[in-house]
């Protein structure tokens, strides 16, 4: 695990994109903001290292240009309440205390009041941001059982710190997002995920959780070699197939079983939770959580409804 160097760049290239999605799987209509390219947390399953070959983590300092792009999307396309996130090519918070990258974005979304910014992270340092947070920023944490954090997300914050940081954001009046992604099938994972949901229910105010995503482990085929080479027993424990997009994913019946299990556990904690599947097929949606979602447009519509329900006329 080599340490990477951080390099600042001033670029005018398009930093705002539609989440790339994947063939025959339903996407949630998310917009990604590429502020940082590369991540020092080095999770074992992270696909970034296979896409970004450089040892350098690039940080885009041209925030004004980025904000202009976000603004033009919000102004020109009013068909949905857009959700933007900076956690696609990196972790949203890992560099934030040091470089203060998110503050101008948080302030922009707070003033604009027309869209949401999601800061998605496994790094539980948000104290420096607390005074600046507003309702239009969603602080989100990816959550895994502590056993997985210790083995596969070694450099990131422990579970209790992530949950504590999420609670702080809630106490400040923000909605938070939770991402159980990647969900990993390993020996005894059901029990660990059961306790994870228990912790979520115990520590967080579930009425202030705007969304929870569920996404089982999936990875491009060339990562199989890496996992084998690194003897990633946890990651390889389940039964994999090649999906229509060429990626490895768990067998469909297993995916349905696990999604259903987690969906039921979470809904038992709070029936009002908004739970969605990340990059899943229509039939998996239907069989696991009983929803018929035709396409990305339909799912984006559900997000709109959820946001309107929580924000009323504010957005």
């Amino acid at each position, binding site marked *: 695990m080599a340490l990477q160097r951080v390099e600042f760049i001033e670029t005018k290239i398009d930093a705002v994109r539609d989440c790339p999605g994947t063939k025959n799987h339903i996407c949630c209509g998310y917009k990604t903001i590429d502020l940082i390219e590369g991540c020092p947390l080095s999770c074992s399953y992270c696909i970034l290292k296979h896409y970004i070959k450089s040892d350098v983590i690039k940080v885009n300092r041209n925030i004004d240009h980025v904000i202009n792009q976000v603004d033009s999307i919000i102004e020109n396309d009013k068909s949905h309440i857009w959700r933007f996130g900076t956690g696609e090519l990196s972790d949203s918070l890992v560099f934030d205390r040091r470089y203060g990258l998110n503050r101008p974005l948080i302030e922009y979304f707070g003033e604009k009041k027309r869209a949401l910014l999601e800061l998605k992270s496994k790094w539980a340092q948000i104290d420096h941001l607390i005074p600046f947070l507003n309702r239009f920023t969603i602080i989100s944490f990816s959550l895994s059982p502590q056993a997985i954090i210790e083995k596969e997300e070694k450099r990131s914050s422990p579970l209790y710190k992530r949950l504590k940081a999420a609670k702080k954001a809630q106490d400040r009046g923000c909605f938070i997002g939770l991402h159980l992604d990647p969900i990993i099938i390993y020996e005894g994972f059901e029990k660990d995920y059961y306790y994870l949901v228990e912790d979520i229910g115990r520590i967080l105010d579930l009425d202030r959780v705007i969304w929870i995503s569920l996404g089982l482990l999936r990875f491009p085929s060339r990562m199989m*070699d890496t996992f084998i080479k690194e003897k990633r027993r946890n990651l390889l424990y389940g039964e994999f197939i090649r999906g229509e997009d060429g990626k490895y994913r768990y*067998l469909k019946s297993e995916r349905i*079983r696990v999604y259903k299990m987690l969906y039921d556990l979470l809904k038992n904690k709070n029936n009002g939770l908004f739970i969605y599947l990340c990059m899943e097929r229509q039939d998996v949606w239907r069989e696991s959580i009983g929803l018929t979602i035709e396409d990305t447009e339909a799912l984006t519509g559900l997000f709109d409804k959820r946001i309107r329900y929580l924000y009323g006329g504010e957005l």
Partner: protein
Amino acid sequence: MYRQRYYFEYIPIEDIVTQDRTFCLSYPLFDDILTESIRRFGIIQPIIVFDSEPYIVITGFKRLESALSLGFEEIPCIIRQVGQMDALLIAVNDNLTRGFNIVEKAHCVDKMMQLGFSMEEVYDLMGRIGLGRHESVVKSLIGLSWAETELKDFVLRHRLSMKNIDYLLWFDPNEREKIIAYLSGISFTDSLLREILEMLSLTKLKKGSLPEGELEGAKDAFEIRKRLKRYVNPGISSLDGEFKKLKESCGFPKNIDIKVDPFFEKEYIDIIIKADSLDKVRDGLKKIEGAIEKGYMEGIFGLTKSRIHRDED
């Protein structure tokens, strides 16, 4: 250009430390054709040895090996006074024009690393002998260089790719020995071997040992692959079994077929009627109708839509 003349002299083989392989890059050492040529014509090109007592060979290990097997008592040698790093470079360059096999390339890299050449120098040579300049390649080559002769021979006999060499190195020597023994009598392509090795390593990771029962008595590599697939993908295998049973129950004639996604990922199925007349189409549709009424088609959709688990829940 400065040129130095070297003279050779005949040295008794007993004055040479024949087992010192510090600079030996060649693999395998014994070469029938070379031995036959030496038997007929003698050693035309002298070997190079260190000016030490006893002499240590820098280059010419194969010739020495042939000479020994032919019972020669002395051998033509050029005696050189050089440092260890220069000696290795002489050995490398002496062999460069004939081309190295992958094991010899591994020896080159390993010995350069051992003698303290810089990474840049190692990468430079790797580039010249057609290897990718990457840390992971260096690691694999060092592994191969130190591997047992069974693996080296297997690698050369089947001209294995670096990927498959990596897979084999991943196992411990005992397991490797078993895998090589199982695969020795059969032929396979590099990609088929890769599939087999990937499944073997997956099984090893999940279950802690090799699925030896799956390898025993297999008549060819395809059978090994089939058996391992069943072992590594029990879910798919059982779905496949169910599908075959249902298809059989449909009792379709040869011109009607049903195809599903081999991974049971896509929910739709293909129903094929091969027909050269309207009657055959009508007949085909009637048969499909019958299978629907008996619930077999519903059963097949149950498999592609993974309904079995839900119903059992």
